[in-house]
């Protein structure tokens, strides 16, 4: 995989529930993209005041057609600009980036979990897993029906699909981890793939680990560049040598094995540096008070 930087023509920009679904012409990106890869999109033109690239997991890449697809939520100023692009306009895209999902070498039973538009790459991943003979059960969850993405395609691609919503507006009321244990037990699931917000990934990993299954988690850390130079998207990750490092999720991820992430230091609002992390700050010794404190109230 070699990342390329291209001006990708917008072929389609369609609404999909609360999201926009963009189809872009980017043959160089599509040629080597795999499920789990992402692209980093510049916002606006060469005069844009929004300098930082926005990263999106690939929904699908079609090497034959030379197209890539992404799903985005117009949450902030950058994504609003991208959501407003029209067919015929172009977006500066770098990709494919990151390390994709690791596929099993022999057929297994898998569960794929998506939160909100995190479900975007799952149909593509489901087809890749089925090509090697694996069973694919999918669970997608969102706050409400409008924030689900891609159920129709997933229903077609997967062996089974369960939908959950926080408010019960579609599928089972609850969250993805409500339905995972029974599903995993029923099919003897040995690997779980998930994309979505950090809180969900953690819960999914815990359910998978409790059932003795491996997990492959695609994180959504905020990035400035996507190519490994800015060092903003780091997470504490335990390496092959057992040492924890602040690893760049753009080049060492975005897909991590759940048992490598240092959950004790990761929260939805950011990551701390574990005390045993390589190069962690040595906390200064607390100086002894110059005079003994009396403890007397004053």
């Amino acid at each position, binding site marked *: 995989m070699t990342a*390329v930087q291209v001006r990708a023509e917008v072929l389609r920009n369609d609404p999909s529930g609360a999201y926009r679904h963009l189809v872009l012409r980017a043959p160089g990106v599509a040629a080597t993209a795999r499920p789990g890869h992402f692209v980093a999109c510049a916002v606006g033109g060469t005069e844009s005041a929004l300098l930082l690239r926005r990263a999106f997991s690939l929904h699908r890449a079609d090497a034959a057609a030379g197209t890539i697809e992404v799903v985005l939520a117009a949450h902030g100023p950058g994504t609003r600009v991208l959501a407003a692009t029209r067919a015929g306009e172009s977006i500066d895209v770098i990709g494919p980036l990151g390390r994709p999902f690791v596929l099993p070498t022999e057929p297994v039973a898998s569960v794929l979990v998506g939160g909100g538009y995190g479900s975007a790459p799952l149909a593509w991943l489901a087809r890749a897993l089925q090509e090697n003979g694996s069973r694919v059960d999918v669970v997608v969850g969102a706050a409400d029906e409008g924030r689900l993405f891609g159920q129709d395609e997933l229903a077609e691609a997967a062996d089974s699909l369960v939908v959950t919503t926080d408010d019960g507006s579609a599928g089972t009321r609850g969250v993805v981890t409500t339905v995972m244990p029974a599903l995993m037990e029923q099919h003897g699931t040995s690997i779980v793939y998930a994309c979505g917000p950090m809180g969900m990934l953690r819960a999914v990993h815990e359910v998978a680990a409790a059932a003795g299954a491996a997990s492959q988690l695609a994180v959504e850390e905020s990035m400035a560049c996507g190519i490994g*130079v800015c*060092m903003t998207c780091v997470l504490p990750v335990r390496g092959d040598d057992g040492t924890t490092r602040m690893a760049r999720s753009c080049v060492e991820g975005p897909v991590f094995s759940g048992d490598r992430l240092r959950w004790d230091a990761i929260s939805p609002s950011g990551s701390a540096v574990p005390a045993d992390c390589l190069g*962690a700050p040595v906390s200064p010794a607390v100086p002894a008070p110059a005079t003994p404190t009396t403890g007397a109230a004053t």
Partner: protein
Amino acid sequence: MTDMSTTVGALGLANPVMTASGCAAAGRELAPFLDVSALGAVVTKSVMVQPRSGRPTPRMAETPSGMLNSIGLQGPGIEDFCAKDLPWLRENGATAVVSIAGGSVQEYAELADRLAGEPGVAALEVNISCPNVANRGLVFACDPAASRDVVAAVVERTPAGVPVLAKLSPDVTDVVAIARACLEAGAHGLSAINTLLGLVVDTDTLRPQLAGTTGGLSGPAIRAVAVRVVWQLAAAMRAGALPQAPVVGIGGIRTGLDALQFLAAGASAVQVGTVVFNDPGAPARIAAELGEALSARGFRSVADVVGIAHP
């Protein structure tokens, strides 16, 4: 065609455009997007003696035409750098300017000692704008005496022919006084500027957006400040208030014309930083645009335009 070569003291560059420290790692990640050997130089991310984890996240906030970062000098430490990064730069024909950072004069000295024996170090850039443990959270570059001590320790240990550049902070009352201290301590050139200290409040949590509270502001938002500092340094040299030395201009360069502003204000070379995050091929593009801009204006060489904006 303009002759694009330039010099920064004893350092000869094929063209005036380098990467800025902290925005290009050690060059390798940019290789898919540009030819590192065709750049003026690759200035590496500041390396410290020991591996360093950097700060907790969030480390970044976008700002108008810029960004705030508090990475905290995450890096592999000098041994790993010398084992992996420097050889890669050599093998790929890059001119390597190594940025060094430390928490004490002793650490800078150790880094200079270690690098003195390494082939392929074209110059050192002394990042004196990083947190100074020995000086209660201030930075070396805010204090003339501390700046002098660090630069003198590095210069003393660096082989002749390898220029030492001092990277200045704009967050000072009198940048010329700091520059003077660095040059008197033996620095061969000045890099200006490092980031400006900034803060963004998250309006949902009503807390600072960065885990490190404050961060360094960079990008086109700070360009006019950077051009002003370069101008000030060059003007002080012209007035005899500062020893003559080459200046490397840094701050929000996005186009060849931005680079031209810095040259005209007195810089002999420039560095491209934050814009690399937007456009990883930017340093090569900017060099080409600068070449066109100089040719279009009839300049035969880079030296002909350096400082031309001064009366």
